């Protein structure tokens, strides 16, 4: 390669880098500025929230907002409900997603292609369309204010099926065939060969699912009236309603407490995800 061409490519790389960083800064601003504002506001005293010019630091430092959250609403009951709903909904979604994807990618049975198209079609229907009929059905069953009323309608899996199916199809055929010839039955094949090879995708899928379920708002809001079954997201609305619109300190404190668990989970699983990715990369 001539020196000129080389420097041209390097130049291109430099321009690319500049754009890359610019994009990152933009994304960071869009995400980080509101987050920063939430955290700062959660430590502000009531009369320091609506002031001009805006105060960028919480002075005086007011951690009382946090204890306020836990006393003014049954915070821990909401938290418990969130954990229950997220655990079961995400759990069902992940298990069903993996199993259905496995069947649709690596097991042979008549009607497999049609079934996959049907599932894809389900993916195309927006949630909002099914919500009214779901509501009517669940109300009829007498499941309002119950966990099953919240969890079961949320546990549809089309996305996971789609994602994991593609992952399974991308695995090297020869390894699957080797396992079949080695006498691995369908579950052993899934558990000992297919899943370990799909770890990074599975972790990513799980993470997305868990975060989604944790942040689910509309359906639990429709289904639950109080702290018996309402998750944190709904609880925060109650907090806001109780206090009127102006007292943002405790609301922001509640928001921070709500974000925290998923943030921690994200950080933990992210490391897993990277570990999975690099251990897969040592192939020839």
């Amino acid at each position, binding site marked *: 390669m001539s020196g000129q061409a080389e420097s041209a490519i390097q130049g291109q790389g430099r321009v690319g880098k500049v754009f890359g960083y610019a994009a990152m800064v933009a994304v960071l601003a869009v995400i980080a500025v509101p987050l920063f504002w939430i955290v700062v506001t959660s430590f502000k005293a009531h009369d320091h929230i609506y002031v001009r010019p805006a105060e960028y630091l919480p002075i005086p430092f007011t951690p009382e907002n946090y204890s306020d959250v836990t006393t003014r609403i049954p915070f821990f009951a909401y938290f418990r409900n969130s954990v229950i709903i997220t655990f079961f909904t995400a759990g069902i979604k992940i298990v069903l997603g993996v199993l259905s994807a496995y069947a649709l990618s690596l097991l042979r049975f008549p009607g497999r292609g049609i079934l996959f198209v049907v599932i894809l079609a389900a993916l195309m229907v927006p949630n909002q369309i099914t919500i009214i009929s779901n509501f009517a059905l669940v109300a009829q069953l007498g499941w309002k204010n119950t966990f099953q009323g919240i969890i079961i309608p949320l546990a549809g899996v089309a996305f996971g099926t789609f994602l994991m199916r593609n992952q399974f199809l991308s695995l090297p055929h020869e390894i699957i*065939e080797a396992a079949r*010839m*080695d006498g691995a039955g369908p579950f*052993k094949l899934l558990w000992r060969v297919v899943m370990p090879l799909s770890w990074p995708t599975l972790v990513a899928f799980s993470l997305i699912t868990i975060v989604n379920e944790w942040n689910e708002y509309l359906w639990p809001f429709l289904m639950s009236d109080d702290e018996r079954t309402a998750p944190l997201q709904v609880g925060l609305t109650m907090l806001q309603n109780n206090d009127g619109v102006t007292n943002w300190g405790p609301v922001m404190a509640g928001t921070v407490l709500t974000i925290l668990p998923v943030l921690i989970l994200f950080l933990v699983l992210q490391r897993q995800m990277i570990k999975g990715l690099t251990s897969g990369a040592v192939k020839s």
Partner: protein
Amino acid sequence: MATVLFDEATRKYPKTEVPAVDKVTLEIPDGEFLVLVGPSGCGKSTTLRMLAGLEPVDGGRILIDGHDQAGVRPRDRDIAMVFQSYALYPNMTAFENMAFALRNAKVEKAEVEQRVTEAAKILELEGLLTKKPGQMSGGQRQRVAMGRAIVRQPKVFCMDEPLSNLDAKLRVSTRSQIAQLQRRLGVTTVYVTHDQVEAMTMGHRVAVLKDGKLQQSDTPAKLYDEPVNTFVASFIGSPAITMTRSAVREGEVTIHGLPVSLDRSTLSAARGDVVVGFRPEAWQVVGAGEPGIDVAVDLVESLGSEAFVHGEPARSHDDATVAIGADRVTFKVIGKTDLDVGDTVRIAPIAEQAHVFDAESGMRLR
């Protein structure tokens, strides 16, 4: 211990015009090392995969020990396969890779241990048993893949180009190791390769495949000495045979302008033109006064004990010869040679060693 019989076995992939494997009939006796060889895309892997049960048989049958394998699942055929990519389980150690099939078959723990240890000893894998494939070299992975096959003590080994991912030197040494191992274990083996040198050095018998059709299955020596058609003649042998097309006139053919008398009874079977092939060792250097072909040397491969000389025949004006493939001649010289690129040398074919084929059908004339 098993015999394998392909009985007009055919495989036609969906949405394709021609069968990938077309009525292959081939009997493999117990304990034989059979090599399936042919150019890329000729259907070797498909044939092997049909035997292993990984590909359906669309026509004909495949029998193991006399039993039709139609509908028998791969896991129930008692066949172990070594894949080109090795297909090791990346999440398992070498030991676990080898023990996987045994554990699935509910073999007792002590016996699993014993069989894996023994295989590891044979394949010199003892130090690697706790390592995962990601931490091994290509040659080590290849040996683990072999180990995974032999611990099962199956009826048949299937190997699909197991050496093609190794570097040249390792390939040569592993080649003889695999052949020795097979002789020692005595397990019927079907080995696929596109490399005719591997085929000739490893197999008891070699089956040559082209476009899904079996051309010839014979011992390496027979394939070399009596190829049934021009394809086999040119595919087997390295450097390749030199072939020219010629008309037949009164027991004579013309090779690059040189009249050569051949066996009349052979030639009488020809309906039209013939193709005449001479292997590198079927030429001799002759003096300038004698009848021969003048060849301008353009490549000399000297191996010390012998040398292969490649060159282009000098054409005379009335030369009606049509060369097959490149218009070149390759001949062998015993011992050292002082021939060099740019030299001209006069050579003549040894008529008794001619391979004669019908030009239209490409079939050998006898």
